[in-house]
């Protein structure tokens, strides 16, 4: 009956597998997608920006991505829309070594390891503004793959990142509980970072598949949150020992709380979040012009 399954290409947010992916990996294994008549083809993009290219051109029907990528893609007229959120709030911020907490004002003149993605400079700018600083007041070191070793080797004073990736890594590789300076406490709206998005043409043509995809995904998230060990095992089965088992386990453990209470609104996008984010982006000149908040997302494919 595998032949009857509809294949969906699901493109990920960046080139390397992450613990975040455990829900759809486990869900595929448990047959949650097959129950909905779907089969997921999980594809990784060459760079973070290519996710939206694949989605926009219809090479992929659905994507795991970030809110900023959706906004930039829409700015370039790519036909993509956010169809669900992944996580509840913003756990991005500045990470420094254990025992060396920093305030925003401390950052002046410091060297900070960053990534060259859409999101980092936007939020860093907002945070620095909180202490009347600008991006020119810090020295940014952009790394291609990982900033954590730079911090562990004291090559930088701080790095940007999220608690359940860089934070986790500080723990597993550096054996330390990193000091974390949350962005949300310094002028950055507390809105979700990660999104599930769909290709507009496909959404219009196959609303049922979209709904089925989200139903299966929601079921997967709930199941994976309840059975973390099973999730980690499924991840390992797929990606062998290219990963550090300790890290993935820790990452998924760190990720589960970010979904908050597993209520009915687990994946529902909320207009207020988008309005706040777009307002901040406009204020800091990250994007030139924005459309109405509701044009970026839809909850039409989520179960009511």
């Amino acid at each position, binding site marked *: 009956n595998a032949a009857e399954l509809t294949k969906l290409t699901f493109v990920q947010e960046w*080139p390397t597998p992450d613990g975040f992916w455990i829900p759809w990996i486990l869900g595929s294994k448990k047959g949650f997608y097959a129950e909905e008549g779907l089969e997921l083809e999980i594809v990784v993009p060459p760079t973070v920006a290519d996710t939206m290219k694949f989605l926009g051109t219809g090479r992929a029907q659905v994507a795991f991505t970030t809110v900023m990528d959706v906004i930039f893609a829409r700015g370039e007229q790519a036909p993509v829309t956010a169809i669900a959120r992944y996580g509840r709030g913003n756990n991005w911020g500045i990470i420094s070594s254990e025992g060396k907490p920093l305030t925003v004002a401390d950052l002046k003149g410091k060297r900070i390891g960053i990534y060259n993605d859409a999101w980092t400079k936007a939020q860093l700018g907002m945070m620095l503004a909180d202490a009347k600083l600008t991006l020119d007041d810090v020295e940014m070191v952009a790394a291609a793959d990982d900033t954590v070793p730079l911090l562990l080797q004291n090559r930088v004073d701080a790095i940007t990142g999220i608690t359940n990736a860089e934070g986790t890594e500080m723990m597993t590789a550096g054996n330390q509980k990193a000091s974390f300076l949350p962005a949300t406490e310094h002028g950055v709206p507390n809105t979700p970072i990660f999104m599930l998005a769909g290709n507009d043409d496909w959404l219009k043509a196959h609303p049922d598949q979209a709904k089925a995809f989200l139903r299966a995904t929601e079921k997967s998230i709930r199941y994976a949150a309840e059975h973390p060990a099973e999730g980690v095992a499924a991840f390992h089965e797929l990606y062998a020992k290219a990963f550090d088992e300790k890290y993935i386990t820790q990452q998924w453990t760190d990720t589960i709380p970010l979904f908050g209470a597993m209520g009915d609104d687990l994946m529902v996008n909320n207009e207020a979040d988008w309005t706040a984010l777009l307002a901040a982006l406009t204020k800091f000149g990250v994007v030139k012009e924005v459309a109405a908040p509701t044009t970026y997302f839809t909850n039409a494919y989520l179960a009511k």
Partner: protein
Amino acid sequence: MSDRHALLLRLVYPLVALILVIAGWALAVDVFEIPRYVMPSPMDVANHIADDWPALVKGFGQTFMEFLLGFLAGAIAGFVFAVLMDASRPVRGILYPILITSQAIPIVAISAALTIWLGFGLAPKLVIVALVVFFPVVVNVLDGLASVDKDIINLVRSMGASRFSIFRHVKLPATYTPLFSALKLSATFSVTGAVIAEWTASTSGGIGAYLLQANSRLNTAGTFAAIVFLALLGLVSFLLVIAAEYWLTPWRSGSKARRWSSSYWKDETGG
């Protein structure tokens, strides 16, 4: 005796090289107290390889196939291109600058476009590996074609040879030597091409994907295990090119045609 000795030396040197590299590596990790997340010790890597043997071997097979098909495609395409460019001065004059500047464009910058056009399958990966081999092959084969002695061409023309026959018997074989030197130079390097190709948009896991995954989250033992397999792959590909050269250009390695080749004359009269 002296031949045996030479062969032995040929095997001894790479072995010594291997031992030196491993010893130097172990020593460096030890003496400079390099942390594990920067560089693992040889033992760490050996353990990781033993642990994850099936996945690594499967990845090796996958990457090897990508390398092989892409390498062949690139070599053939480069060869055909060079022949076409050789046939016409304007074509050569126009394509040459394009080829040269194209080398400065990082493959990663165009890999998304490639995937969008060619899908997530093998095709874009082969194209990327092929691109690595393409340029040196074109340059060297062009050189080879241009260096054919005009007198030989005149001679075979005087024997009534057609244009095609001249190409087949004189020009074509003259390209083999430069062709193989291009292939040798790019053999190991196109393994890197295969790795980059796997980063392009991979659904399936070769060694390149393995490396990226391990590297992304500081699994340095995994990263170095992948590097070891890539080095092995590089060596294998280099040896494959050497072997192909040995078989396809017998006149360069021996003084006599090989017994089973079509051009070997077997004496039926038993002279």
